[in-house]
């Protein structure tokens, strides 16, 4: 299997990245887990890399010496993907955050993998452009987003990370540097290795640079918050919205209890408590008239479908009062309990209502609190099982039962295990049971083709 790092190995790494190799007590405990904290692992060496060449040299060394390597950005993952469960070397890309190229002719920006999503968004915004994917965790790195194919709230209209990546610079396990994709818009040139690396959670190659698609920033956006009497009524309206020939940027659903958690967490009241269930939608365009016209179409539709009202969010202040709460849901639910685990399933949009109602049934069956929120517009739900002081045995038992029930239901509805958080360590068994042996074997063959020694992020995904 893998070797443990010896003093010689540490010295070799120090020659590659002088003063940026940490070991033992020098490594902060934050590096032992990710945001969710259910997976735990201690890296034997942490290397804070600055360049693609350094990543290449570290991987070449690791490959030659059978040392496992895990890549890490900001550590905001939720499935244990960036946790060194096999020890070995952890490559921290968070210092690699340069913008390498801003190409207005080709509408691309090329950045290093450690750039934060919020930094990238601000960089583009200042120049009148938009990087379209908008995952809730703005302090994630773009490399991390690519590794899980993160989605976010604008996926309904603009797609997910994979749709926004034109090219990647990546390092193979043996240290060889490859460039996949290019600034081109079309590509019919053989197997798409770029798309294969995106979402592979650091198991196939280490992404060090990304060329990303940008668009001129839409001039105008307006959001609406739509209260419904019941969650079922709210969610069952979503397919009709999708079918209305108007494409909102985002369609989010939220329940009153989740909003209350956010209020407590932020210490700030939400603008309304009119109902138990809400849809939050945004419309954008280059003209105010077009965005407002789209909004009117959907607002009227919602009222026809029994919405209690449609509340207008048309200024920065109003937008902040609603979207800040939406952005805090994960942390708010987390702070409402001692421990939680999450289910990030994605189901066909027509099945969202059925799935959410089913989570209520699961909560009753296992007697646990299971709040949820998510992207009703793309079928990606974030469902959280809260421990609420249950003892270890009860927690593991109930959690396992709840997950099994929910993933089985997702399968039945034509859904998949993860919409945007990835598989990592936490969701492996559910991926295997959902995809079946043939697909898992194909994935394992791909893994062997990229990484014959299996040193990259061992034990993750498949």
């Amino acid at each position, binding site marked *: 299997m893998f070797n443990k790092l010896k003093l010689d190995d540490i010295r070799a790494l120090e020659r590659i990245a002088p003063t940026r190799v940490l070991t033992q007590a020098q490594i902060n405990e934050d590096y032992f887990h990710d945001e969710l904290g259910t997976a735990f692992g201690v890296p034997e060496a942490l290397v804070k890399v600055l360049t693609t060449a350094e990543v290449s040299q570290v991987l070449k060394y690791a490959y030659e010496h059978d040392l496992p390597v895990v890549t890490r950005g900001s550590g905001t993952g939720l499935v244990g993907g960036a946790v060194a469960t096999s020890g070995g070397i952890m490559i921290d890309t968070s210092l690699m955050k340069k913008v390498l190229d801003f190409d207005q002719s080709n509408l691309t920006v090329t950045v290093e993998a450690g750039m934060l999503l919020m930094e990238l968004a601000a960089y583009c915004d200042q120049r009148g452009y938009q990087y379209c994917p908008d995952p809730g965790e703005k302090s994630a790195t773009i490399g991390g987003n690519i590794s899980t194919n993160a989605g976010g709230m604008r996926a309904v209209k603009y797609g997910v990370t994979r749709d926004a990546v034109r090219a990647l610079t990546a390092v193979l396990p043996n240290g060889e540097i490859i460039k996949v994709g290019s600034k081109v818009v079309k590509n019919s040139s053989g197997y798409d290795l770029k798309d294969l690396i995106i979402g592979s959670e650091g198991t196939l190659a280490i992404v060090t640079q990304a060329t990303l698609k940008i668009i001129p920033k839409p001039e105008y956006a307006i959001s609406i*918050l739509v209260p419904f009497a019941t969650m079922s009524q709210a969610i069952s309206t979503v397919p009709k919205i999708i079918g209305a020939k108007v494409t909102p940027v985002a369609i989010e659903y939220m329940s009153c209890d989740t909003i209350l958690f956010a209020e407590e967490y932020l210490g700030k*009241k939400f603008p309304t408590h009119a109902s138990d269930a809400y849809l939050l939608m945004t419309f954008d365009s280059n003209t105010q008239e077009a965005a407002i016209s789209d909004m009117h179409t959907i*607002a009227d539709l919602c009222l026809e479908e029994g919405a209690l*009202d*449609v509340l207008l969010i048309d200024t920065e*202040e109003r937008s902040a*009062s*609603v979207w800040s709460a939406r952005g805090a849901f994960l942390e708010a639910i987390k702070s409402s309990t001692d421990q939680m685990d999450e289910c990030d399933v994605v189901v066909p949009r027509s099945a969202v209502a059925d799935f959410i109602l089913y989570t209520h049934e699961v909560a009753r069956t296992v007697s646990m609190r299971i709040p949820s929120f998510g992207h009703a517009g793309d079928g990606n739900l974030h469902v959280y099982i809260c421990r609420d002081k249950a003892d270890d045995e009860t927690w593991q038992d109930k959690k396992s039962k709840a997950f099994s029930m929910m993933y089985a239901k997702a399968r039945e509805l034509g859904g998949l295990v993860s919409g945007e958080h990835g598989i990592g360590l936490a969701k492996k068994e559910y991926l295997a049971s959902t995809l079946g042996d043939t697909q898992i074997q194909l994935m394992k063959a791909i893994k062997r083709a990229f990484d014959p020694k299996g040193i990259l992020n061992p034990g993750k995904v498949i």
Partner: protein
Amino acid sequence: MNILVCVKQVPGSSAVKVDDKTGLLIRPKKGNKLNPYDLFALQAALDIKDCDGSPVSVLTMGPPQAMEAISECLWMGCDEGFLITDRVFGGADVLATSYTISQGIRKAGAQDLILCGKQTTDGDTAQVGAEVAEHLGIPHLSNVISIVRRDESSVTVKALQENLIVTETLELPCLLCLDADINTPRLPSYKRMKEMGEAKVKVLTFADFEDQDKSHYGLKGSPTQVQKVFPPEKNDNRVLYKGADDKLAAKLSSILKERKFI
């Protein structure tokens, strides 16, 4: 209790343009919004309405497009709107503005409680509310953070004064300038917008006012001599030091000492 909220339409962004010759703000015809500070006063008024059904009126002074601001207040839950607009009122400073508004309030029916925001995001003087009250000859208080009690003849409020919170009781009618961030303003209702159709806004012009002396209004009634009006300069000067932690710490310490922060 009859409640009146004074609001203002302000430019939607912080990129305020100023006429070089006149020193007056150039108000865009599009992209305006309700002054964010006024929203807290509106919410406080509508909270009272939610409790006891008190009617809430809203009043603004501005060009014709300020009607949009009134409409928005009606969609938020206000019952009646007044727009003070006339070319005679153009170019008014704080004194002429507050006098004009006080004249408008006199025509808007008997009011028990008049609420204003803390300030506006374009003028930023935070003086109009208090001056309106002086013109009307009624008690007033600024920096109000909560209305703790009210009855038929008085209202008791808490207000921030320097480093302490004071509790004051004011006889009605009175005027309160509410602080920012004391509540979460509600959102305008699309349903209410559809139901209300054309906003029922009463337009008040110079011809409607009791005081028909034009020298009290607009530029003529404005003793303020504006030398120059300009948006605040953006200051994002910063210095970046790079180096080892201990050297950076020593550098930071010496800068703080040099500038007498420590």
